[in-house]
């Protein structure tokens, strides 16, 4: 009797709440995040102060938003090295155009630029069928140079309240945060919904998991991939807007590491670089892990160079924890 009961419990684990949590693909990332938080709050009492937590969120906004686009592209078995550069170009275009034709017109022009570049990447990947890595490496190089030519030697101050709106703060109880944080969470929610609850999202997974099979099944694989690059362009614009909220200056040198940071966030979050597996929830946690590391190490008084060594090591540890928990529970 006892054995039977035990076996029953064991099998139904798949459906019970704790079982669901254990088997959730983001379980590992959550563990890694919690471990980091526990360690840092033990090292510095200030770490868990609401002001510090709010800062971590604010510092994660731009990379966090871009990481959503990166997740989509990686799910299709691609990679986007140009997404950060598109966003930076977006900030310059917003700033320059706002000075000329006002913030709303600037938004329109920046949208055309960002989406246009997304479409360029998408067309090269889907129509000419070139590898996304090399396409976006090429466009990255070209976009960075074009941005510098456009910006010249100037840094642009942005004063329009619309363009800097996402930097404004508001309070929830004692917790202060910015509209940028809200927008970031919204982007995650919307794309999470689109990926899991719509046919378009299913097709993104199918295109990444077995492109040939998806095509034979009647999925319009090229159109789907193209749409992913278009969506990335839109998300890059949102990131550009958030960047202006954070620093009301457009600078052609900003966010040079954004691409690698987004990829790190995506991978720590458990999305496979080979496509077809993962999701934005993991990426959000991955973004937070990176933010927590940086903030925690600074609070602990670690110098930049040692911080980099520690970050490098901790990124590997985070992925290792993730892999380990996943293997233990689902294999």
């Amino acid at each position, binding site marked *: 009797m006892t054995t039977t009961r035990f076996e029953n419990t064991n099998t139904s684990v798949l459906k019970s709440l704790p079982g669901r949590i254990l088997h959730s693909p983001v379980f590992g990332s959550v563990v890694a995040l919690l471990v980091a938080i526990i360690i840092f709050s033990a090292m510095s009492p200030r770490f868990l102060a609401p002001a510090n937590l709010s*800062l971590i969120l604010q510092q994660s906004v731009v990379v966090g938003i871009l990481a959503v686009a990166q997740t989509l592209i990686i799910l299709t078995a691609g990679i986007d090295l140009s997404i950060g550069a598109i966003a930076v170009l977006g900030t310059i275009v917003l700033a320059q155009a706002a000075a000329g034709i006002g913030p709303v017109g600037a938004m329109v022009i920046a949208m055309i630029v960002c989406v246009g570049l997304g479409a360029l990447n998408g067309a090269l990947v889907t129509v000419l069928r070139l590898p996304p890595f090399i396409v976006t490496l090429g466009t990255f190089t070209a976009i960075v*140079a074009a941005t*510098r030519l456009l910006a010249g030697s100037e*840094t642009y101050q942005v004063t329009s309240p619309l363009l800097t709106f996402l930097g404004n703060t508001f309070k929830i109880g004692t917790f202060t945060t910015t509209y940028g944080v809200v927008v970031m969470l919204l982007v995650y929610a919307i794309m999470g919904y689109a990926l899991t609850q719509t046919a378009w999202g299913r097709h993104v997974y199918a295109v990444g998991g077995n492109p040939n099979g998806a095509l034979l099944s009647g999925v319009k694989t090229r159109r789907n991939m193209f749409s992913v690059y278009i969506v990335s362009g839109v998300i890059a614009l949102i990131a550009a807007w958030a960047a202006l909220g954070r*620093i009301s200056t457009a*600078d052609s040198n900003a966010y040079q590491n954004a691409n690698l940071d987004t990829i790190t966030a995506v991978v720590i979050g458990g999305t496979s670089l080979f496509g077809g597996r993962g999701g934005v929830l993991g990426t959000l946690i991955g973004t937070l892990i990176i933010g927590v590391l940086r903030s925690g190490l*600074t609070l602990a*008084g670690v*110098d*930049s160079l040692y911080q980099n060594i520690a970050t490098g090591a901790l990124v590997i540890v985070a992925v290792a924890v993730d892999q380990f928990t996943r293997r233990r529970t689902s294999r």
Partner: protein
Amino acid sequence: AGNDSGSGSGGGGEEVKIGLVTKTDANPFFVKLREAAQKQADAKGAKLVALAGAFDGDNEGQVAAIENLVTQGVKGILITPNSSSGILSAIKNARDQGVIVIALDTATEPADAVDATFATDNLAAGVTQGKWVKGALGSKTPKVLMLDGTPGGTVDSLRHKGFLEGMGLSEDSSEIAGKADTNGDQTKAQTAMENLLQRAPDANALYTINEPAAAGGYAAIKSAGKESAVSIGSIDGSCVGVANVKKGVIGGTVLQFPAKMATSGVDAVVAFAKDGTKPAQSFNDTGSMLITDKPVDGVESKDTTWGAENCWG
């Protein structure tokens, strides 16, 4: 009537070609340098080819640029060396082939590796920043945060060293409450400063490698509500920077004169192309000047009105 070796005595009416190799294309300072050189070259009827390293510290990129410029047959090369000693052999090769090489902004080590240098004395500029911050603090015990540039950069370490000298501190003084690398990038500076302030909320002085770093640092200080408590010093002298001094974002900044470096450099190459004369002096300090509206005793300074007339970019 081309000659194959590509160098030697340039023919009479031929357009003088000048190569400019900056550290990167990114920094507004180098963009200004490039623009000024272009303007001067146009005025003198010379052709300028502007190349750059891909990132701060790209010695290989600068060496390749020098090699390719020599192949192309330039009369002279203006270079802002990434590292004062990293590219000496390429410079020597170029000079051996009859090309005049002039360092801008950063001196080489030894200084006579090039034909002449037009540069700011970055150590002195750092000292000026340090002295001003010390003066601005008055009798308060300094509690210093430092937003550095790129680790290993020559200019970056000269300014850092100069600042500490001007403050009367040393590298491991307890008055230094924290340091972070910003690569001179405003976004990184803001993030770094936010985190540093969490650790050292009572800091009262801030060293910055350049004005974007200062603007980023100020944003973090402001959102922490400490803008009156911290004295911010900087170096560069861009017009945005000077405007920020006027607005009170930066307490004082040390202005340098990139246009002067570029113009003198182009003139020197054109003169050399004409009759082979080289600049008389090896090191030519193009000078620097502290811009602040809160002057302190013992440090020479000009106000922001003067700054706005003499700034660059």
